[in-house]
Each structure stands twice: as C-alpha cells, then as structure tokens.
C-alpha cells in the first residue's frame, strides 16, 4: 500500500491555513460591520471601510474557489 504522506500533509496544511485565514478575515469584516452599526460611536465610516475590505478579500477567495471548481477556466 502506498500512502502519499506529503500530499496528505499538504492538504492538511493548506486546508487549515485557508480555513482559519478566511474565517479570521471574515470575522474582522463582521467586527467592522458591528462598529458601523453601533450608534454614536463616531467610527462608523472606518468600520464600514474595514468591513468592505475584509469582505472583498473573502470574495476573492470565493472567486478562486469557483476557478478551481470549473475546469473550463484552467
């Protein structure tokens, strides 16, 4: 039986890294949103900018995911 440990390790490392990165960035986006929605804090525009930037980064990852799914793009 041949087990490709290096490929397995790569899947594990990439999956862990990407998942944590996406969720953390998305959480920062949500935090920005929550600041933007908080009343009278004065930091609403900054919060909105933070949210927009983070969600844009996540959207880019999603776009790359779709690129990986659709073989016509390769």
């Amino acid at each position, binding site marked *: 039986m041949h*087990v490709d440990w290096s490929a*397995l390790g790569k*899947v594990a490392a990439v999956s862990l890294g990407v*998942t944590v990165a996406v*969720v953390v960035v998305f959480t920062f986006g*949500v*935090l920005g949103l929550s600041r933007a929605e908080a009343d009278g804090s004065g930091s609403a525009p900054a919060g909105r900018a933070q949210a927009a930037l983070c969600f844009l980064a996540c959207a880019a990852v999603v776009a790359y995911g779709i690129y990986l*799914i659709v073989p016509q793009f390769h």
Partner: protein
Amino acid sequence: MDHITFLVAVVIVTALAFDFTNGFHDTANAMATSIATGALKPRTAVLVSGILNIVGAFLSTEVAKTISGGIVDDTRVSPAMIFAGLVGAILWNLVTWLAGLPSSSSHALFGGLIGAVWVGAGSHGVHFDKVAEKVLIPAVASPVVAGVAALVATYLAYKLSARARQDSVTKGFRLGQIASASLVSLAHGTNDAQKTMGVITLTLISAGALGHDAGPPVWVIGAAGVAIGLGTYLGGWRIIRTMGKGLAEIQSPQGFAAETASTTVILTSAHLGFALSTTQVASGSILGAGLGRRLAEVRWGVAGRMVLAWLITLPSAALVGGLAASVVKHGGNAGTAVIALVALALAAVIVAASRRNPVRADNVNDHHEVNLRNPAPTNVGTAA
C-alpha cells in the same frame, strides 16, 4: 439505438436512481448548518442547492474515466455487475436515510461495486490495495483535517467577536454562510453528478452504443444533473436534522467556520487528486465547529452512531451488491428483473417506514433526533 439492450436500459435507470438518492442524501452536507442557524429558509436552501448541483453537473467536463477510480478492475466489469452494485448502493443509502445517518454515498457506490465484482468476477477483480489507498486513508484523514480546521477557526471567530454587537455578528455570519454553503453545493454537483455520468457513459461504451473514449452525450449530462438536482431539492430532511441539530447546536459563526472548512478540504483534496467523501468532511467540520465554541454541546452518542455507519457502509453495500450480483449472474434478464422488483419493493417499504415519523421542511429544526416512531406527544394540540 439498437445497442441499448434491456440490461443497459435498466442500468441507466438504476444509475439515475442512485444519482437521485445521492442528491437527497447529500443536501445536508452543504445546507444543514445554514438551515439550522436560519441563514436560509429550509425550502430556499434546498432550491439553491438543487440548482447549483445541476449547474455543477454541466460545468465540469472532466468525466470520470473509470467507474470506480481503479478500486475494481474495469475490464472485468459487466453492465450486470454495475447494476448489482448500484442496487446495493441505493438500498444502503435509503436505509441510512431512514435512520437519519449521514453516511457516504461514494462509499456506498464503491461498496456495491466491490461486492458485485467480487461475486461476478472473483476476488482478483477487486484491487484491495487501491481500496485502502483511495477509500480508507481519506476516510480517516479528511474528517479529522476538516474538524481541526473548523475547531481552530470557530475558536478564533468567537474569541475575536466576543465584544462586538451580537446581532451584527449573527447577521454577518449568516450572510457568509449563504456563500460558503453555495460553494459546497457547486463542488458537490461537479463531483457527484460526474460519478453517475461516468457509470452511464462506460456502460454505453461497453455495450457498443458509444465509441471508445467517447465523452458523455448531452442527454446523459442533462439526465444526471437533473436527477441529482431533483434529489437535492427533495431534501433528505432526516439527515439535515442530524447534521444541523443532532451533532451539535450550531450558531451562525460555527456554521460559517464549518462550511468554510468543508469547502477548503474538498477543493484542496480534489486539486491534489484525493477522492474523499463530502459527507464525512462535512460531518467532521460540524463536530469541530461544535467543539470550537466553549460550552457548546456535542452529542457524542450521535457522532458515535454516525462513525459506526461510516464503518459499515462499504461492507454492507458490498454485501447487498454481491447478493444482487449472484442473482443476476445466474438468472440473466429474468434475474435482473427480479432484483429490480425486489429493490423497488424494499425502497417502498423504507419510504413507508419513514412516513411513520416524517421529517419535512417545516419540522426539520424542531428536534435534534430522528426516530422511526413518533415520540410520545409532549405538547397538546399537535396530533396526527
């Protein structure tokens, strides 16, 4: 079309039936947590998932070139064995659905084929080393990887968002869930509909209706896509309940982390050539997400039953597939017809049994348990 014999026609119909059970068995993988957290209404979720499955089926052109990815010797496989294997896979999918257990449709298909080929062509028709490499290793590794990723991501998401406005947090992650769940559905359509297309195409080639190295005809792509899409839209509500409510109480940040982990693991391994079970990945993610939130309840009893179902899926489907293969082998067309009728009857019995305590779109989130019998009514006024 004179190449299409009775047997080939039966194989095609059976393959589409399997595709259909594959669809409703796996709706939960993409949508269970979105439904449980209220990110999507149950009906909307299955509609989105069904459509994306059909889209996925049409998107991918890389049709499976082997029936099984090399775990059985394809040159020894006859349409009769494929039929028997599919019957084994379908029946096992229905039994686990009745019990509300998320088991792997791919393992059921592999198991059915292994059993049928073993009986039909002898044990040398089965490549056991490939079974270990392609089925066992990913089956152990992928849920663990997905679970750890979801656990870490969930922990960080809660830690970082602890002091934020909780209604903004819930709303934000719900929106994120819609995107991540949709991506799981799309990946599912490109993978699982392909399997059925591959089976049908290879059957047609072996019957001489298509040339060697032919791609699937448009009607095969369309039929396979629609079968899995309809199955998905029907919604395996029993399994959705187990995955969304049964394994752990899931909130929207956990749902988002779980779905992100599933998507990443599925896409990375597909990219690096690992065949894995979407179901097992998604279940691993949900357990990880359950553990990642402190004090979150993980129902280990449910998880244990689920893992037991994973362990016996391949052998059970192999047993049914082998049994069906021995009847088909000795009975010819008459044997095929008998097996088809028996399978239909068993399927009808299972569906009838599910009616005794149905799980539907409108009650999927009410409990966390899937029982065969109606639990004793606890609240007055909900008779029938």
